[in-house]
């Protein structure tokens, strides 16, 4: 999938996700929840192949319903009785809806994190912290470099050990455990010894010679500036809406949520904000379609 939003400067992407996740976590206002749910779902659809989306829906929807019912059976606050349980406790509309709302929030969070994990790749994450925390980010980068290497290495060692009858795939539990520990131990020795060469290679390229700078392959262009300005404006709008009581909501005893102008203003800002990636991708698609027509 050719996602334009992922090609933006990582700072923009990271900022976006922080805000979206915060908003999702903080509000229980039903309309905001629905907006969050739908926009995270839209972006997910854009990023992931449809087979995965279907799989996701298949367990998200039942989970939402289950959590709704779960809350309804265990929380009995609220004034609109639906029916009574055999043990005499009432099942209320409010409790059910509250459960549903929290589940929707949970689902939206889950989907935002799916998007986050697809878009914020390791190099972007490291870049963000590379400037302020050069040692930590180098430590992470080194570890990330070592991981695939050690993994193949452990496979090689396992195979080699199997060849001399010391494999960890057969024998009794004790033998298998011991052989596994042996394999791991060989990997430790090998990793530590080859680390010496890595360290030499770092020294030889001047590590520690002075203050480290951080290389980036990302560019801060007009597009990023405009987007950030727009995001801040939308956030301001949202902030005003929150400040003037646009997102207040109460589930117990009866459901009361704000339905004023502030809410509408907040809703609009929130919708635009959380749909930003989809909008950007849509615009891109439109431009390409026209380019094709022109040529």
């Amino acid at each position, binding site marked *: 999938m050719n996602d334009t939003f992922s090609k933006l400067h990582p700072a923009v992407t990271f900022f976006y996700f922080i805000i979206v996740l915060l908003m999702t976590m903080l509000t229980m206002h039903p309309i905001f929840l629905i907006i969050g749910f739908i926009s995270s779902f839209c972006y997910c659809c854009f990023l992931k192949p449809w087979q995965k989306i279907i799989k996701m829906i298949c367990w998200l929807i039942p989970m939402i319903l289950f959590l709704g019912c779960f809350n309804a059976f265990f929380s009995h606050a609220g004034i609109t009785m639906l029916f009574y349980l055999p043990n005499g406790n009432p099942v209320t509309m409010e409790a059910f809806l509250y459960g549903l709302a929290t589940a929707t929030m949970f689902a939206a969070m889950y989907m935002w994190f799916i998007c986050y994990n697809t878009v914020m790749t390791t190099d972007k994450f490291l870049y963000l912290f590379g400037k302020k925390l050069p040692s930590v980010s180098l430590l992470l980068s080194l570890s990330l470099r070592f991981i695939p290497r050690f993994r193949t290495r452990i496979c090689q060692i396992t195979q080699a050990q199997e060849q001399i009858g010391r494999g960890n795939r057969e024998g009794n539990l004790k033998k298998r455990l011991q052989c596994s520990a042996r394999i791991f131990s060989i990997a430790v020795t090998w990793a530590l010894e080859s680390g010496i060469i890595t360290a030499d290679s770092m020294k*030889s390229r001047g590590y520690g010679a002075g203050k480290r700078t951080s290389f980036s392959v990302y560019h801060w262009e007009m597009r990023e500036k405009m987007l950030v300005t727009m995001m801040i404006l939308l956030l301001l709008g949202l902030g005003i809406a929150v400040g003037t009581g646009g997102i207040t909501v109460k589930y117990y005893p009866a459901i009361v949520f704000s339905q004023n102008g502030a809410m509408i203003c907040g809703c609009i800002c929130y919708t635009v904000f959380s749909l930003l990636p989809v909008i950007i991708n849509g615009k891109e698609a439109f431009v390409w379609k026209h380019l094709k027509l022109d040529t």
Partner: protein
Amino acid sequence: METFEIRHLNFRYPNGEKNALTDISMKIYTGQITLICGKSGSGKTTLLHRLKSCLAAKGMQSGEVLFSGMPLKQIPYAEQACRIGFVQQHPDDQLVTDKVFHELAFGLESLGYDQQKMRLRTAETASFFGISEWFRQDVESLSGGYKQLLNLASVVSMDPEVLILDEPTSQLDPVAATRFLAMIRKLNEELGLTIVLTEHRLEEVLGMADQLAILDEGNLIAFGETKKVIAQVNEESVLAMFPTSVRLFKAAGANGLPPLTINEGREWLKLQKIEQQTIQKEKCPPKGMPFLSLKECHFRYKKDGPEILDGLSIALRRGEIYGLVGANGSGKSTTLGVLSGIYQPYRGGIYLKGQKIKRLKSIKYGIAAVPQDPRCLFVGQTAEADLREMSVDESKLQKIIELLGIQSILKRHPYDLSGGEQQRLAIGKVLLANPSVLLLDEPTKGMDGEFKEVFGEILKKMTEHGISIFLVSHDIEFCASYADRCGLLFGGRIISENDTHLFFEENRFYTTATLRMCRGILPGIVNCEEAVKCIRK
């Protein structure tokens, strides 16, 4: 002008009994390629490490090293990092970060370059090396050869004046090695970089070296212009490392400047008057029932994947050495995997002593593989401990120690051994599991010429004990000298197979340097020893 001037350099490691380097004086001129050669353990690496302060091990040093006329010690760390580039032997271990672009920028980041300059340098370097396509890839997705090229590129991106390369191609396959050396040459010719390199595979580098230094046990036994140095040298043990053309030239007792390449060698050989000799065939390779064989095996890693083995048939007889050669991706490692029971072919038969078996279980059926990297086997603190954990049978242990000639290394840590010694120790461990078939994957990788001879003799001795050896190698010369039969693998099946001599005689390109040199002049000559005999007569 000299880039480096070494004056009477002596060096001894803290726990060393004798000097690792003794009274070395040499001048490395700007813009030249200086090749340092010598057996393993002759002090090549120690010498190279002396040329960059941050890599120089602690120890007693006397004499001095000047870099552009200044004592090396006085040049600050950051300046050395930038001006002296160093590439080591193992491609994998030198890479520091997880992305290609980050690796290219690593040195620049360390030195605190600004963003604009780093972008320019990395972009320039990537373009020069032709690696811009994978600028954003993970380093792990590259093959060993490209990893080493990336190591070189990330040093070159710091704009060094001199490149020091410590056996940079010893872990690479021939194609990657050629590509790497071509890049070295390009750097030298187009950017005027001074290059100091050590190598033990001299066929390709000798032709491009301006200066040659020969080290032996820490002594500089010859130094100067390449051809002149070779003309001076006469010691048999030193000559063993040189390519065929030089060895033949020396064997003929010729004077003057020696031929360095195959082409020059042919020119020279044509001028010689040699009587047609018939070479006596060596003892016939063992015939008889195959011990282990594959019949029309098909294998692929995934159901939808490409066919890796496509009707492979191969037979290994008792007590023979079989050499399997072929280019990268022809399925050599997979063949080994099938023979050792790691992979199961989805069609075709596996026969052990003539009986069809369903699935090979390596050690149960007496088949043992020595991994390409012997370090996969070492657990002990000493070589001896490592051998002992395989078997408690003292007499067997002694027999194997003697067979492999590893008495002298028993007390050392396995990781402190040289590549060849590690290989022998690994074989020792595997032999203690009593195999009747030994599978070897690139056993001569990283071994020097003299060591290979020792190693080949050990293999021959093992066959006398009835062990069959199956080796997969890029080292054609080694196969030609020691294998009884050879096969060429291409596209997952054996394209040609014959007794070694006949096998290499038939091949036009995929054959030994000696044969390529002697073709049409000395017919029927395959390896260097034969040619030497022929010429001596």
